[in-house]
């Protein structure tokens, strides 16, 4: 849906300084362009729970981090995001890949479709579902609205077919 160049330009335009990430087959293709963009630093972590804590430390230190993970990583990282977003009220924005949303050819019956959106609701993370590249502006608007309100937010990027 998006090229790495488009995403890197969008993050830079939003003033993001660090992208803390675990790749999947969609968002992982953006890594090189993010890493090669002036003003953006890509921080690769081993597991998604780490991403929220690293982002929290960056935020404390005055940076503007963003967490970039797949929805399976959202499932993995529940306690860490609970601690960062809710115990400490740190307004981290995330971009989360929504596995199999556009088709299920690779993983028929993928339960990511069952659990992702209810889980975001359960964690009280306001998200915008992005299904086409024409919605890039909605990511920017949602990021800026969350930033201004000092609250976490998420752009949920449909995956499965460009």
């Amino acid at each position, binding site marked *: 849906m998006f090229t790495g160049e488009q995403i890197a330009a969008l993050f830079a335009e939003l003033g993001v300084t660090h992208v803390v990430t675990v790749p999947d087959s969609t968002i992982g293709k953006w890594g090189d362009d993010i890493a090669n963009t002036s003003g953006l630093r890509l921080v*690769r*972590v081993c597991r998604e729970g780490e991403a929220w804590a690293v982002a*929290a*430390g960056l935020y*404390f*230190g*005055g940076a503007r981090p963003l967490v970039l993970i797949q929805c399976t990583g959202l499932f993995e990282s529940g*306690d860490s995001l609970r601690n960062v977003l809710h115990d400490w009220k740190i307004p981290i924005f995330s971009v989360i890949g929504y596995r199999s949303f556009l088709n299920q050819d690779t993983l028929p019956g993928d339960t990511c479709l069952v659990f992702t959106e209810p889980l975001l609701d359960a964690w009280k993370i306001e998200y915008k579902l992005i299904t086409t590249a024409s919605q890039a502006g909605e990511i920017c608007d949602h990021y800026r609205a969350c930033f201004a309100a000092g609250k976490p937010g998420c752009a949920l990027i449909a995956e499965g077919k460009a």
Partner: protein
Amino acid sequence: MSDAAMPLRGAMEVLREHRAPGDVMVTSMGSAREWIAMGESNPLDFIFVPSSMGQAPSLALGIALAQPARRVFACNGDGSTLMNLGALATISAESPANLILLVMDNGVYEVTGAQPTPGSALGRPDKRGVDFAEIARACGWKSVYRFRDLEDWQEAAADCINAPGPVFIALEVAPVPGAVGPKSPGPTIDRARSFRSALSVPKN
């Protein structure tokens, strides 16, 4: 010199002696409890309570990356380290020269009643505990140390914390009998705000 592991309080007092103005101190679990009990707090203390267990080194990594001019200490338990072992690889990949991680290795989940961790000699059929210093070395940390005796740690501390970073220090400490978990020293939202504000003041 005895063969007994050093007392946690003594290990932490060494850190207090060597902490310089402008240094950040992240503590969690037992180390947070001791740090709070040891006296007056510093605006650059981050008592990571409540925490997500295992995430103190990751949080410290974020601070270290955002503030490369500051030295950042992080104190973690051995059970916490096991819970987020990948952080050792993440940190060495980023290789922040200003990060010092101390693992207080007592072999047990102290605050839940001293059950052995899967990494401790007590918790394994072969009675051979996991060597965290060797794991850190294998992950590529720049400087790695391990101490069991308090006098040895006291003597070497200055050299260790001034060694090329990231620095990993495993301290074998004795469990504190009957120890409970630390209490949050205040509302998290206020503490988050004041810590961020303290970090916004440039280091002299």
